């Protein structure tokens, strides 16, 4: 009966997709993502835009207060009077800070500068003031050492490092480390989350079949292997549907929010680029774009919106320079391979135990390599994608689904990719074999304390 597998897959899919919780989760997550994204962008841009006013009380007698340069973030307004009066007036004013330059401030002794604020002084505010003062002092010091104003102007440079990726054939590619890492990170997270979320669903599903005692009825009609694989594939389809809907709805919700608040935000609509691409690409692009916006706001505080746009354009240019075909191909392989490998093991756990609470002891050794490969992946491998840790972890089938997709955007030698995929396939077949044996015996075994010794015996029971 070749169609039984299809019937099982269909049931597993439909019963889950028709559940109300599926609908709620599918609708809720994009709203959360969009709200969260909006929140981040809002903070990032509002931080950039608002100019803070700081009163300057200059008692140094060197006219330093007049020479402080205003920036888009910081406006300096000189005030006069004695400190105590000025403080009282400042508290009544709407200004954000009061900078006090004490008498006797000189190049030799740049101490005693104080910054008053209502509430705590933020690091950003303090840094901006320090930068402004630094500039003054270093100019003065350089002048004192005999440099002319023209020389000083000539010395000012604005360096923008463009990184170029030289590949083995000697071809140059525009690379942007941030975009590459962003994609690597996003793909790894996607695989990790997918395996975890839906692997646990497989385990629960098998457990429910076992505890509801439907198993024996089912097995008088279908083979245990069909039942196990039908569930794994059916739940994979549920997961893909959910991720696809999340992708589409997130993009939709984000566009809607940005459209509503467009005039308040300078952020360009990265979504338009994303919607034209496939959903997986859309996720990557969106993730990369969001990641970029956050870092541009925090890292380069002085960047003007115009500069941000040009940087973002650089990201897309860098994306085009990446081995996108290889990434897509590898992602599909490792996504499916990793899910099937872990899915089979989760199914076996569900079959082996009677009670959901007993799953813990068996969950640990299975989730460990998954969690480890993710943690090490986003730290060690992301920093050194060609190192020995990266190499070995991308070869072992239990860690390669995550380790290899992190390496892919940085470029992986063909032989390594081929070897890793080969090992993954062998690992996958081996795991499914083991899982199927445990499953076959386990689903009809009730009321027995399951140990690893017991499980290993099941592997050799005759059909």
């Amino acid at each position, binding site marked *: 009966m070749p169609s039984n597998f299809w*019937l099982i897959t269909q049931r597993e899919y439909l*019963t889950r997709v028709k559940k109300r919780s599926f609908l709620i989760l599918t609708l809720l997550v994009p709203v959360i993502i969009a709200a969260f994204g909006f929140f981040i962008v809002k903070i990032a841009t509002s931080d950039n835009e608002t100019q803070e006013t700081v009163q300057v009380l200059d008692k140094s007698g060197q006219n330093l207060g007049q020479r402080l340069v205003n920036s888009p973030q910081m406006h300096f307004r000189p005030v006069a009077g004695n400190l105590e009066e000025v403080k009282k007036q400042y508290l009544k004013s709407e200004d954000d800070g009061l900078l006090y330059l004490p008498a006797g401030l000189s190049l030799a002794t740049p101490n005693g500068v104080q910054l008053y604020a209502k509430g705590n002084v933020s690091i950003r505010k303090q840094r901006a003031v320090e930068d402004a003062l630094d500039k003054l002092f270093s100019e003065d010091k350089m002048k004192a050492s005999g440099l002319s104003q023209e020389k000083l102007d000539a010395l000012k440079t604005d360096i923008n490092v463009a990184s170029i990726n030289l590949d083995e054939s000697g071809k140059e590619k525009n690379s942007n480390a941030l975009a590459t890492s962003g994609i690597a990170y996003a793909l790894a997270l996607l695989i990790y989350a997918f395996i975890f979320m839906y692997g646990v669903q497989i385990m629960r599903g098998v457990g429910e079949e076992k505890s*509801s*005692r*439907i198993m*024996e009825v089912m097995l008088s009609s279908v083979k245990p292997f069909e039942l196990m694989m039908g569930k794994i594939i059916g739940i994979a389809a549920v997961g893909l549907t959910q991720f696809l809907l999340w992708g589409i709805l997130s993009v939709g919700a984000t566009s809607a929010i940005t459209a509503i608040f467009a005039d308040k935000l300078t952020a360009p609509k990265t979504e338009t680029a994303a919607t034209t691409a496939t959903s997986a690409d859309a996720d990557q692009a969106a993730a990369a774009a969001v990641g970029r916006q956050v870092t541009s706001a925090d890292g380069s505080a002085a960047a003007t919106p115009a500069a941000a746009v040009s940087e973002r354009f650089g990201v897309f240019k860098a994306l085009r320079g990446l081995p996108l075909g290889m990434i897509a191909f590898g992602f599909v392989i490792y996504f499916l391979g990793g899910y099937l490998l872990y899915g089979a093991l989760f199914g076996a756990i569900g079959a082996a135990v009677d009670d959901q609470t007993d799953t813990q002891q068996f969950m640990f050794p299975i989730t460990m390599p998954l969690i480890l490969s993710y943690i090490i992946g986003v730290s060690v491998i992301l920093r050194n994608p060609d190192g020995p840790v990266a190499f070995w972890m991308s070869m072992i089938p239990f860690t390669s689904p995550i380790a290899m997709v992190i390496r892919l955007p940085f470029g992986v030698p063909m032989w390594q990719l081929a070897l890793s995929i080969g090992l993954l396939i062998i690992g996958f077949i081996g795991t499914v074999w083991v899982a199927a044996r445990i499953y076959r015996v386990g689903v009809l075994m009730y009321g027995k304390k399951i140990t690893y010794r017991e499980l290993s015996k099941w592997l050799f029971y005759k059909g």
Partner: protein
Amino acid sequence: MQPILQALNVRKTYGDHVALNDVSLEIPERSIFGLLGPNGAGKTSLIRIITQITGADEGEIRIRGERLAPRHIAEIGYLPEERGLYKKMKVGEQLLYLARLKGLSRVEATQRIKAWLQRLDLTPWAEKNVEDLSKGMQQKVQFIATVLHEPKIIILDEPFSGFDPINANLIKDEILALRDKGATIIFSTHRMESVEEMCDNIALINRSRKVLDGPVGAVRDTFRTQTYSVEGKGRLMIVHPDFEVLEHNERENGHFHDIIRLHAGTTPNDLLRYLIGNVEVQAFRELIPSINEIFIRRVRETMPETLMEEPVMP
């Protein structure tokens, strides 16, 4: 006539545990067969081999002389002792799913489901989730799922356990109707008295071995003890070389109830003739051993050391 199902020297082990040891059976077509024995005797193991949930280590099962093969799955309907349904699925959907797994087309399955639900008064529940049904109703749904694909062989493990008396009778009638339509029924139970009067043939299994089988009448005949129960009025004082009084009870108003065994070569008519000459006979009945008694006697004869121990599940 060729038996519809044969087991030939079937052996099955789980690790060190022997579940079935050299078991052979023959089940005639269109009959009701009782597979009897205490819990853990090996009944369920044999059924799981017949339903192809597991395979035999040695020996084989034949359906109409053919070696058991995957195509026979559609010819067998199995109601396991551990019954279950998908709790979150609707009754109709669930039956459709189980029927289609047995190879029925959607259209045909839908028609039959409708007819069966009507027959067992479940039509109003077709769109309800299984978990909303009472236990009795769930069992009816399970029974429908077992017979929906019109299997030639219907295997019912502990068929009446958990059924209330009304539903048990309802199911009993349905089983007999299915037999009359040509199906072969296999009952597996440790409560032998529950199926005794329905079975045509039986096999007794104990400790992984078959200890006895054959038509119910023939089995009983071999275990007849020539013992009769007599009730009547008068003073019964038997002193006769051909009869032996095993039990004598005096009742009020000169009534009595005796258990009398005939010695070899004596017929019941000899006893009757003797009684009529002495007392007024009101009831005269042969005491036929129940299958349960036969089972215990047989086990005591063949493996006396095992009977006293509590049988254990694998």
